[in-house]
């Protein structure tokens, strides 16, 4: 993303489009020059680098590059660079304060000529026991342009231009009122995308289309007034959209008091960097194990990991597995961290998926509330590993085979959790804390998330759920 004043975009009629780099020779040349400038200035002062960059900007202008383009590249390069304060004999703040104070004390506020100035500097240097030169160096070290370029994360000219194109698109989206994305997308990528949409406080409505899924993305207040408020967040979602196999984006952009349309599709993929998404948020060991086991079962069902997302009403279901046998298709979703309300919401959504057969596999260890009967047959509770036999039993039911699966709710055994004294001591000090913090602490004593919650409940703590992530769960000590 770039500062808004570096956005280069053209409007034609009611359409707007950014002026992308097409990797032309002179653009590659300038990019190379800039990268070289950063590389060769490791160990030099910021102001020296800036001087060279300024020269390149002027040169670029002569060969037909917009100065905003050059500054855009420089902006991106700066993000790959780190600067450090120059080495000094004495803390710059101390040097400055001493000097200013001396000038005030001695001359009523300021040094009006060279004689006065030298006297102030000499006095302070003597008092601090350093040379006048060292004192002046320390004085200047407070200025940003005296900083030293310490390191630079190298990049090729072509990659830099691709990164620039992505940033340019994001910068245009800062002023987006809403965005519509048509996607052909894998379940995993959809999960990450929607996770991010929600994390950013945006909202989406999903719709099934011939090719895949359509998402309308905006924010809560958008229904009251169309606003650019969510633009920066929409821009943050863009890389996640670009990670899908095929995408088409439409957005409304407000610029200089007018509203424009912006289109772009994955046909232009070569303009942008390849987006690789980190998938660490979800632990997949449960899935992997189950997948292997099921395949060796010889059930006659074909198992597929991460099938296409399903649209239910206005939201999306992302099953972890699909089982197919002939015309029959059954999905399974593994539910990680959950609350009763979360499950209820899930089930309500499921009801909208009328023709879809879905099994929910719920990890009891990640329970955050007491299990109750939710009135949905196809829930399987498990502790460590997702049991293949139980899943198979449900599948057989769909095949029309009898043997009604015995899917009763397991009684949760009364578990008394013992913790060492250190943990008790820690808990006794807790007044208000995030659950994530307490879990991190108690994990040291071998407690699972579920056990921690049970322990807290048994001690009478109030647990406030503000979301499904541990970060958003607040634990409060009850008043005595």
């Amino acid at each position: 993303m770039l500062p808004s004043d570096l956005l280069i975009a053209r409007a034609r009629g009611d359409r707007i489009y950014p002026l992308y780099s097409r990797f032309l020779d002179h653009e590659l040349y300038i990019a190379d020059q800039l990268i070289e400038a950063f590389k060769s200035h490791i160990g030099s002062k910021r102001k020296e680098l800036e001087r060279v960059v300024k020269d390149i900007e002027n040169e670029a202008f002569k060969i037909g590059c917009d100065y905003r383009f050059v500054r855009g590249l420089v902006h991106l390069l700066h993000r790959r660079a780190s600067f450090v304060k120059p080495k000094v004999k004495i803390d710059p703040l101390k040097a400055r304060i001493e000097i200013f104070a001396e000038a005030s004390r001695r001359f009523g506020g300021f040094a009006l000529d060279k004689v006065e100035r030298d006297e102030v500097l000499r006095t302070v240097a003597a008092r601090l026991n350093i040379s006048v030169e060292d004192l002046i160096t320390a004085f200047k070290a407070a200025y940003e342009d005296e900083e030293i370029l310490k390191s630079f994360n190298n990049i090729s000219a072509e990659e830099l231009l691709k990164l620039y194109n992505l940033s340019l698109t994001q910068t245009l989206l800062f002023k987006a009122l809403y965005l519509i994305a048509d996607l052909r997308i894998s379940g995993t990528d959809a999960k990450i995308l929607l996770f991010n949409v929600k994390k950013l406080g945006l909202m989406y409505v999903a719709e099934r289309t011939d090719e895949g899924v359509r998402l309308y993305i905006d924010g809560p207040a958008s229904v009251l007034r169309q606003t650019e408020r969510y633009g920066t967040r929409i821009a943050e979602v863009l890389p996640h959209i670009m990670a899908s196999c095929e995408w088409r984006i439409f957005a409304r952009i407000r610029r200089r008091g007018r509203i424009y349309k912006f289109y772009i599709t994955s046909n232009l993929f070569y303009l942008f960097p390849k987006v690789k998404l980190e998938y660490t948020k979800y632990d997949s060991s449960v899935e992997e194990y189950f997948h292997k086991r099921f395949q060796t079962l010889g059930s006659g069902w074909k198992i597929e990991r991460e099938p296409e997302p399903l649209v239910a009403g206005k939201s999306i279901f992302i099953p972890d597995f699909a089982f197919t046998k002939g015309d029959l298709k059954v999905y399974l979703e593994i539910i990680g961290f959950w609350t009763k309300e979360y499950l209820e919401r899930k089930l309500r959504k499921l009801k909208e998926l009328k023709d879809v057969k879905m099994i929910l596999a719920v990890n009891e260890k990640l329970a955050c509330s007491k299990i109750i009967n939710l009135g949905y047959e196809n829930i399987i509770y498990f502790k460590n590993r997702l049991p293949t036999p139980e899943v198979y039993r449900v599948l057989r039911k769909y095949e029309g085979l009898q043997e009604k699966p015995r899917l009763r709710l397991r009684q949760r055994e009364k578990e008394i959790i013992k913790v060492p004294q250190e943990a008790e001591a820690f808990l006794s000090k807790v007044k208000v804390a995030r659950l994530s913090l307490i879990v991190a602490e108690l994990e040291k004593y071998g407690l699972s998330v579920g056990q921690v919650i049970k322990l807290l409940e048994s001690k009478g703590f109030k647990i406030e759920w503000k979301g499904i992530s541990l970060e958003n769960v607040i634990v409060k000590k009850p008043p005595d």
Partner: protein
Amino acid sequence: MVTIELVYDRGTIILKPTAGIEVPRFFKFDRRVNVFRAFALHYLDALDFFKKRGYKVADYVLKPIEGNLTVIRKPKLRDYQREALKAWLKAGSKGVIILPTGSGKTIVALAAMMYHKCPTLIVVPTLELMDQWESKIRKFFKTDIGRYGGGKKKLGFVTISTYDSAYINAEILGNKFKLLIFDEVHHLPSSGYRQIAELNAALYRLGLTATPEREDGLHVNFPYLIGKIVYYKGVKELSGEYLANFEVITIKVKLKDEERRKYRLLVKKYKDYLRRHGIRIRSLKDFESIIMKSGLDKEAREALLAWREARKIAFNASEKMRVLRELLAKHRGDKIIIFTENTEMVRRISEELLIPEITYKTDDNERKAVLEGFRSGKFRAIVTSRVLEEGVDVPDANIAIILSGTASKREFIQRLGRVLRPKDRRAILYELITTRTKETKISRKRKKALGDVNVTL
């Protein structure tokens, strides 16, 4: 009886459609999630509406921050401050109070806080003002203080935020406070910042400013966002008794021959460009169009650079440095603030004259140390660009020197305000302008503000 469930959702309030209830007009149906939705601003209106119709409301909107506020020292109000507070309370603890710079607006706000003793969000334009509010609050109350802005994100029973941070985090802040205080409230009605008020459910709202009017006319939105103007006093009415008498002295300097030659050349280059392309600059928009063109258009770029260079010559005329030294020599020992339009000049003055500087680039610790030192008298002078204009308390400063500035009346009034604190000494504002340059026009424009405050030159 019908029960309605009212819930807070990220800056809005929502209610589920229920058979047979009437929904006020400020709610809109949100078909994304099948609920009615309104700006959190309408929370109180919504409660009133439902109460009048006899509906029962299950209210889950406010989650006020827990804590309390103990008064350690009672804010002492002057007559007009007490009147202002009364007027605000009478209007249902809603509305804008207009008082001149230096007349103690903060004290009125503190009295309002003392009256309500509820979780309060204070929104201010700059980090300096955050510091200042915090130390004022600590002086009068014992309470948990939170900060949003300048890299900090901590909630407290009393939370101080910058406008920027409050805008970005409006969803989080929207249901945690009962009282909102907007310092320098003329910032609020812009299309972005207004959302701070719209996405917040707070019941009580107080706006403070000396200069309510906006050039874009958006101040008409005060009643909707905060409440009506409940109290107004101008400088005229308070000067003398409560505020320092002041004097504005304009000093004209000439460009040196070399500078004059360069200046003429640059201005000619710029004007030639305008003439050749038939461009007339009547508004900011016309000027922006040149900036737009300058991306690829060589002539436009050169014209623009010439304009900037010419302006710099006028603003930073070498004669100004000489006059500045003369003025300083005359006022040795006084408390002086020097304002300039560009940060290069600030740095030059600081390095040459060894005067502490404050610009937007100044590091946090140094900024605090410098302001603190200036207050205590450890430093007698300070040089700054635009940072110190708004509301920052620099007590006892009695001399302001404007080396350069824009044509903005507000900027001028605010700079003047820095030396207008109650005290016995007479305050002087010096203004240095370069003759026969654009600057004379700029100066004339901004000094129109003096007409409004009734000054004798």
